[in-house]
């Protein structure tokens, strides 16, 4: 029979569900009647029951993992497989076999949290460079373009004032390992806003930032 051919009325399916005490009174009555009439169905029922018992007993084997020796084995196997190392592995296997412990007795929490901490420690310097360095570089580029634009038009009001600084969320987010960002704020002068002066195209077009009305904020995500 195809595994996809779901048939809730199939008698063998009822037998299987019957083992789990999952039949409605009506289904139970139908199954009993069929069992009474058919030798082969009774034989089928007996085999399914035996299979179920076998599987349950198969699952009674205790799970034994010795995490300390597991770690030693892993590190012993990590290098080259010369004779000395293989002897060591063999010895460790013997000790492991003799000293296994139940799965519930281990301190897996310490192992897991240790791994997580190591990963985060290892990743932090690189993440810090990305988190702060890239937005700061982008912000510096904006500042340069805006300063240059206003420098060469000294007689007029500045179009934008640019402030660069960490987001107010940065510290809290960084503690939780969440990506943070540096905020670049633009304040457009009143004159520029009312005279609809065109923004300096080169700098903003390069990084895709647009002025947001008379005062806006845009950030540079990592």
């Amino acid at each position, binding site marked *: 029979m195809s595994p996809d051919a779901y048939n809730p009325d199939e008698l063998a399916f009822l037998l299987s569900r019957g083992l789990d005490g999952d039949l409605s009174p009506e289904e139970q009555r139908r199954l009993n009647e069929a069992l009474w009439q058919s030798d082969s169905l009774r034989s089928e029922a007996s085999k399914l029951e035996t299979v179920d018992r076998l599987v349950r007993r*198969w699952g009674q084997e205790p799970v034994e993992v010795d995490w300390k020796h597991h770690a030693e084995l892993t590190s012993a196997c990590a290098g080259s497989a010369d004779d000395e190392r293989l002897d060591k592995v063999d010895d460790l296997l013997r000790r492991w076999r003799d000293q296994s412990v139940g799965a519930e007795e281990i301190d897996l929490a310490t192992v897991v949290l240790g791994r997580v901490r190591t990963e985060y420690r290892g990743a932090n310097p690189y993440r810090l460079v990305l988190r702060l360095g890239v937005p700061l570089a982008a912000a510096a580029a904006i500042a340069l373009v805006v300063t240059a634009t206003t420098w060469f038009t000294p007689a007029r009001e500045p179009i934008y004032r640019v402030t660069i600084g960490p987001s107010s969320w940065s510290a809290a987010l960084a503690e939780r390992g969440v990506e943070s960002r540096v905020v670049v704020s633009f304040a457009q002068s009143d004159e520029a806003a009312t005279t609809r002066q065109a923004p300096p195209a080169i700098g903003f077009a390069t990084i895709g930032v647009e002025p947001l009305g008379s005062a806006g904020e845009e950030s540079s995500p990592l």
Partner: protein
Amino acid sequence: MDARLEVTKSSEADLVRRAQGGDSAAFGSLVRSHQRRAVSLAYRLLGNAADAADVSQDAFVRAYRNLAQLDDPRRFGAWLMRVVSNLSLNYRRSRATRAATSLDDALEVGAEVRRPATRQRLSRGANDDGGPLPEELHDAVSRALERLPDKQRLALILFSVEGLPQKEVADILECSVELVKWNVFQARNTLKEMLAEHL
């Protein structure tokens, strides 16, 4: 759901929320309360302790990393078991394609060697009611389970071996309860053929 289970689930949900907020001690408590089932499930799916140790560790680390994605903290247990199941199945597939002479095989031999409780079992047969199986029968059942399709093996192990309610198995497998029952039946039916000489 009975009242005690409800309370347990609600305090577990609280631990999950605290862990999502960065409380590693809360996550430690979650690991301790689920490690037996995680290691046991990985072991039943992989058949040796070394792989089960690797996979269950990885599962907890991944769960920690992705905890923010868990919308309903009350479903942490099912979610974690799904991570363990998926990692175990992936591990089995990659193990199957690995070269026969790798060093991992040495580890597997080690894991096979260490089954002291099983080794001492002698003359019990398929129809004995109590206790673990004798070694030969145990190995026959292991081999037969290995050959079942993934969904059937998972459903049978979670339901019949780990003793989870059908509803929880359905949660883990992301399918209907009816499909769980069908997969369990299909698994039993196939095993009946494979283990015919022992029945």
